[in-house]
């Protein structure tokens, strides 16, 4: 029974790693599309990708709004979307952006964002939330939300004085957009009026006017160009931008880099889980061989009632394979119940949605390889039993 369980665990691990890998990869590739360049303060390209697209980590530096406007007006630039990060709402990131975001931003196969209900933000204190934010926090249109300063999920400084009102809820996208609360750039500024750094100013209460809602800086921006051919030229222009150090990256290449970085870990995990499978099979072999001596009598009895060597070997191999099949089935049960249980947690914490799908060809292949391996493993005790039985005949001299 322990053998079945160890096989089950190894199968669950192996297929689990594979499922995470496949889904992570596709969810990765689908996170952003249609954007030609991502621009932020000079740092690493992966870091820029992480905070601007995946909302993971924080920017080291902001870029000035003026540089943004300057680049946005360059020839060949079709559209730009500013991104201003740094605040959060109950663990979800708040992103300041422009209204273009809802019409221009694309993910997956050139899909734009759609509203499940409501509409995009109009006023300064309007907010549009992603589907997961709405689901997890159970928000509806018209609800008031208070944004916390900083990005920790347990931030103590809150912009209590300026609550936002939800104006729209986006449809599920399977991307970090689902976990984002979108407000206008002016909204971000409005929150921070009368703030000095991370601390609320004691006295002053400046009125909210058009003038002081103009942002001084943003975190990053996305760029769409008229022609893809111009993207290298534009990238060089931005990277050599005179008035401040900027970095422009191609999302596709950065995604690929990031994936490569992670796939080392994925491959290591896959190799480890293969070794776990191997260990389980070895364990099964050990148990099977250890039990063989006690079964010499059984083999002798079977021989005496007319069983051939083939029967005996078949019996032992069948036993090993059946144990493995039981292990695989239990492993699949473990895997799917595990996915079912962990699904919301993984999606909330890592933004990775792992659907419960039937095993794909590759996974079935793994299972077949495992079955074949168990057959081969079963040959060993079968051969030993054959040897024993040759020496014992029908009677055990014990």
């Amino acid at each position, binding site marked *: 029974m322990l053998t079945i369980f160890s096989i089950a665990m190894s199968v669950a691990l192996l297929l689990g790693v594979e499922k995470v890998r496949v889904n992570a990869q596709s969810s990765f590739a689908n996170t952003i599309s249609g954007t030609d360049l991502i621009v932020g303060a000079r740092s690493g390209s992966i870091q820029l990708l992480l905070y601007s697209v995946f909302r993971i980590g924080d920017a080291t530096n902001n870029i000035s709004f003026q540089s943004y406007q300057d680049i946005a007006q360059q020839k060949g630039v079709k559209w730009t979307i500013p991104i201003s990060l740094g605040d959060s709402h109950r663990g979800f990131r708040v992103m300041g952006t422009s209204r273009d975001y809802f019409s221009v931003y694309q993910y997956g196969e050139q899909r734009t964002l759609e509203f499940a209900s409501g509409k995009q933000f109009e006023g300064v204190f309007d907010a549009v939330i992603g589907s997961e934010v709405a689901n997890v926090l159970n928000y509806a249109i018209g609800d008031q939300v208070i944004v916390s300063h900083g990005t920790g999920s347990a931030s103590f400084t809150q912009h209590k004085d300026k609550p936002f009102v939800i104006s729209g809820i986006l449809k599920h996208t399977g991307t970090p957009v689902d976990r984002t609360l979108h407000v206008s750039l002016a909204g971000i500024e409005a929150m921070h009026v009368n703030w000095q750094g991370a601390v609320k100013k004691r006295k002053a209460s400046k009125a909210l006017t058009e003038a002081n809602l103009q942002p001084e800086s943003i975190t990053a921006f996305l760029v769409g160009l008229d022609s893809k051919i111009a993207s290298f030229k534009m990238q060089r222009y931005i990277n050599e931008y005179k008035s401040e150090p900027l970095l422009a990256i191609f999302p596709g290449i950065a995604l690929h880099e990031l994936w490569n970085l992670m796939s080392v870990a994925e491959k290591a995990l896959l190799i480890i889980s293969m070794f776990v499978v191997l260990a389980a099979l070895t364990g099964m072999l050990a148990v099977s061989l250890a039990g063989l001596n006690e079964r010499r*009598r*059984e083999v002798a*009895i*079977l*021989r*005496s*009632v*007319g*069983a*051939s*060597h*083939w*029967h005996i070997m078949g019996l032992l191999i069948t036993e090993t394979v059946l144990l493995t099949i039981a292990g695989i089935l239990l492993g699949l049960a473990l895997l799917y119940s595990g996915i079912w249980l962990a699904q919301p947690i993984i999606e909330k914490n890592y933004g990775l949605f792992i659907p419960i799908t039937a095993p794909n060809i590759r996974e079935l292949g793994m299972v077949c390889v495992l079955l074949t391996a168990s057959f081969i493993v079963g040959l060993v005790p079968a051969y030993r039993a054959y040897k024993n039985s040759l*020496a014992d*005949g*029908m*009677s*055990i*001299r014990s």
Partner: protein
Amino acid sequence: MIKPASKPTLIDLEGVDFAWHAKAKPTIKSAHLRVEEHEHVFLRGASGSGKSTLLNIIGGIVTPQQGQVNIVGHDFCQLTELQRDKVRANHIGFIFQQFNLIPYLSILENVTLPCRFSKLRRDNAIKRSGSVIEEAIYLLSRLYAKGKFSFDRTTSELSVGQQQRVAAARALIGQPQLIIADEPTSSLDYDAREAFMTLLFDEIKLSGSTLLYVSHDPTHQHLFDSVVDMSVINQHHELEL
């Protein structure tokens, strides 16, 4: 060759030499043995006299390096291993000293085991009782004349005497022509031994099987048609002298 007009011979060993390993001393040397149909033969021999080896040869588990082995009309030296397995399954029922049963199978499953390997014995059982299970229950209830038993229990709860009866039922199911009993009573106490022998003989007479009974203990040899001593069959010991 002219066939003898008398009863057919079930076991015919002639000049059989056998060694378990090519380099080892032969365990069996120039052995000869004839058992005719319906005969009840008592084969007497001390342990180490080559009894077990002889039974393995008769059962077709091993073939001798020298000599003729003819069992139930089959020349074992000419048959393949699989064919010998088939003959054993079809025509021979074995009862051993002890540990005859497969512990994880129920009593009924143990008894019906030979019918899984032999269509002939399965057909015989069905012909006699309608089904293999019915035949097993019939045999068991005869062997357990006094006790009432639920036969789908596991065998681990049975006493040694009861186990031997189950083993006898298994040897008898499907009416194989030849029953070979190897010290079947030596792990039983006196009463159980007497009861077992009576039952065994009753059943063998009923089924008309041939019995080859092997024991070192001459107590029951008066029940048999003929008594053969291992030292007469096997020239091995004389060689050693």
